[in-house]
Structure formats: structure tokens, C-alpha cells
């Protein structure tokens, strides 16, 4: 058996399924040597990515959000993909406070980038979007959010 645990989750694009993605990544992060604060960071990052897939990718229509979580020694990798509308300009989309929805704050990517060690975005308009995020064990506390029990 290889020393890599790769779990795949397929979620209908419904808001209540965000918490399922959170639980799965939290459990896998907890099996690595992450702290509570780091697990919370991973949960926020995956919430933002899955919410984006539901809200922007599928625009509230039915579709499947695929979450792949890979735990390997010292690192957690999460890929969130949708087959939704895609992103026209990825650099613009990643800008802080930029959103195509006036009701939203445009901070989703900012959170992902701050809470994970790397965030890669691939997208094809009309075909969908894939966000791959990685976090290494022990890479960062002292990070803004590692404020202990602050929940």
C-alpha cells in the first residue's frame, strides 16, 4: 500500500454539502500532524473553494462538485473542481475584493491563499474550474489565524 491516502468526494452543488467537504478535509488534516488552528484554516479554504463552485461555477444550478483530498506524509493536497461556467480572467478573479457578484466580498481566493501554502487555479470558460491547494505540516503558525481557541 502506498503511503498516500487519496479520498474523492462528489457533492451535488447544494449549500448544505459544504459542511461535508469541511468534515472530510478536517478528518484527513487531523490524521496528519496539523493543529486545531491549521485544521480550521484548511476548512475555511475548502469552504471558499466549494462555495465558489456552487455559487459562481454552477450559479445555483445542479451540478457535481468534486473534491479530491490527498494526505501524504507532511502534506495535505485538496483539489476542488466543477464543470460550471469557468473563469474568464483568473488573475483578475484572484484580486482581493474583486467579485462578479455585488453581494459578495471577493475575499475567497484571499483566504485560500493565506490559509494554504499554495493555490493553483485552472479554468476554461464554458468548461469549468479546478482549484488545487496544498498545505504542509508545520509550515505556518504564528499565522494570523493561529490565535488558539478563537472560533
Amino acid at each position, binding site marked *: 500500500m502506498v503511503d498516500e491516502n487519496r479520498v474523492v468526494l462528489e457533492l451535488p452543488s447544494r449549500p448544505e454539502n*459544504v459542511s461535508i467537504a*469541511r468534515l472530510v478535509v*478536517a478528518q484527513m488534516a487531523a490524521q496528519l500532524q496539523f*493543529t*486545531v488552528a491549521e485544521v480550521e484554516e484548511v*476548512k475555511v479554504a475548502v469552504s471558499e473553494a466549494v462555495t465558489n463552485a456552487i455559487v459562481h461555477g454552477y450559479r445555483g444550478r445542479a451540478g457535481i462538485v468534486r473534491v479530491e483530498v490527498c494526505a501524504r506524509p507532511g502534506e495535505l493536497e485538496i483539489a476542488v473542481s466543477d464543470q460550471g461556467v469557468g473563469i474568464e480572467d483568473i488573475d483578475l478573479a484572484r484580486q482581493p475584493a474583486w467579485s462578479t457578484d455585488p*453581494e459578495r466580498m471577493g475575499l475567497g481566493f484571499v483566504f485560500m491563499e493565506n490559509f494554504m501554502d499554495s493555490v493553483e487555479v485552472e479554468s476554461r470558460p464554458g468548461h469549468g474550474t479546478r482549484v488545487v491547494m496544498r498545505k504542509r505540516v508545520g509550515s505556518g503558525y504564528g499565522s494570523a489565524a493561529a490565535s488558539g481557541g478563537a472560533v
Partner: protein
Amino acid sequence: LGEIRRHLRDDGPLRVSRSLKALAQQVYRVQDDLSKELGREPTVAELAARLGVPVEEIVAALEGSRPPASIQEPIHE
């Protein structure tokens, strides 16, 4: 089989040990203690070992102790 059910509920996997909220509170308390002892933040696995509960229960408690992410409004405040 009623017997089996009773057995499971009283001693086994069906025992609902404590509410998730109470467990979450314990986690935060023990986190402080362990942080002092270790001089760093404990891992979830270390907290589970100290509390004598499976990692899975801590994960459920930490998720259950906060409101689920709502998609109606942005997740972050």
C-alpha cells in the same frame, strides 16, 4: 437482539458519550494546557490522545460547535 442493542448503547459504539459542544469546550481547555506543556500548539492527534477520544470525535465537535457555513451570505465576516 434487543440485548445487542442495549449492550451497544450502554458500553459500546452507541454510547453517546457527551455532547459535541461539551467536547469542543474540553478541547479548547486541554489545548491551553498542552500548549504550555509542549511550548507549541498541540496537534489534533495529541489532543485526542490526551482526552482519550478518537480524532473523529474532535473533528465532529469542532465542526458541530460552530454554525454551518451559510451560502446565503458570504462565509467570512
